């Protein structure tokens, strides 16, 4: 088994969504994550706040986030366990984020060679 990171971008726009839509969206995410957790595949994960700082260059130039259009901002991450990149990709396909034009980036966590 290997570890993979899911990076979530975009998704439901809370500014234009009604409470009813937000509740429905929340429940879908919860069901999806509960499924991952109950099969033991979800290892960690957190949502990220909007905003933050971006440091660049040798001078460590600091700028305020968010860094780009909201659909490009990472809104959260998960670490999952899967047999292969293909399996991890399959897991991500059922993510509710796609119903709201969001994206999932699936990245293998590098295994340190001894």
């Amino acid at each position, binding site marked *: 088994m290997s570890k993979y990171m899911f990076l979530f971008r975009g998704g*439901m726009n*809370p*500014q234009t*969504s*009604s*409470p*009813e*839509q*937000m*509740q429905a*969206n*929340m*429940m879908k*995410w*919860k069901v*999806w*994550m509960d499924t991952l957790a109950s099969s033991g595949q979800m290892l960690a*994960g*957190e*949502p990220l706040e909007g905003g933050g700082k971006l440091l660049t260059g040798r001078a460590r130039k600091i700028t305020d986030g968010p860094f780009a259009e909201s659909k490009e901002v990472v*809104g*959260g991450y998960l670490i999952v366990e899967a047999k292969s990149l293909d399996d991890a990709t399959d897991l991500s396909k059922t993510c509710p984020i796609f119903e709201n034009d969001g994206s999932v980036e699936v990245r293998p966590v590098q295994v340190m060679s001894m």
Partner: protein
Amino acid sequence: MRGVNVLESNTNELADHLFRREAGKMVASLTRFFGSKHLELAEDVVQDTLLKAMQEWPFKGIPDNPEAWLHRVARNGVIDKLRRDARGLDLLRENAVLLRSEWTLAATVHSELNASAISDDQLRMFFACCHPSLAPEQQVALALKTLCGFGVPEIARAFVTSEETINKRLYRAREAFRALGQLEIPQGAELNDRLGSVLSTIYLLFNEGYNATRHENLIREDVIEEALRLCQLLLDHPTTQRPEVHALLALMIFHAARSEARIDTDGAIVLLQDQDRSQWDRALIALGNEHLSRASAGELFTTYHLEAIIASLHANAITYASTDWRSITRMYDELFRMKPSPIVALNRAIAVAEVDGPLRGLDELDRITGLEQQHLFHAVRGDLLQRAGRNREARAAFEHALRLTSSPMEHELLTRKLQTTEKAGP
């Protein structure tokens, strides 16, 4: 009819409409706290609160007490806003100084926004939404948005209109609302007038949901449910626990009890005389009877009383034929005296036809003016003509009605009627 069990829970660990309901409560409390000019601020804090729940709950699980979690996060949101700029908000309140000092800020917010005040807050908010400086359609739109937690697209669907129209109504409603200042439950003589406009908003809301001649059944059921809930909110408060409120609730419950039977499995309209009365919700009818009996306490007799009595005579009749049409006619006489509208006259004519025959009903219809452009008028006329054996005229009336309706369900019903006149010959 699921509308009456307002606080039902489901198997998904979270009550249906929890976000929407709690959003309504939180907006009411925060608007009372900030004053009416900061309605948008209150709505922003609530939206941020729901966003946090939406993001955190899937990761961390739904809290044991989701309502308390939401209200706590909203209070913290208020504290954040005040910490950033308490002076800039220019709050209209005696203890504003307490909100400007870090010593007292959090404690003041937590004590002023406590859970026990929520039903009062909702009532204040409701009276404010129904303030006479807002037009009726603005009152309904604003109440649905703020007090009931609906989104603009949902309100637009409920009213079968565009989002742009609803946004315009809300924009004007908010302008008037902001000028109200502190939200209060009216007292004394003012209460009578203001309660009248609150009740007519509820009834308008209910009718919007109930007149099922258009699509979008789900959102319409939600609207009916909200009308019932808001009426119950009035009955839960000692100031507004009044006979006419019981009368309005009874009236709406009698209609709600019959709503399933009005539409068949294919979505077609079923007329009162053809409805399967075993589908009527007996428990709801009993509840309606109970509210109607409480409505009769005291001297006051309103049009809601009359309409509720008429609805109860229908709801409690075992068959269409055994309906007490004589009493219904008398109630319509009285209702017409109090509210001389052509629609009341039309309903009265139907009752008269049941008591004294279709020709007497047609006489009554001929006296009505102002409904020439309403399909319902011509449809009723067609029915009475057909019953009087005047098929040719009935056909013309149904055709006239057909030209005046855009509703597919009404269209289908009228076409069916037209066919029966054709079978029957001239």
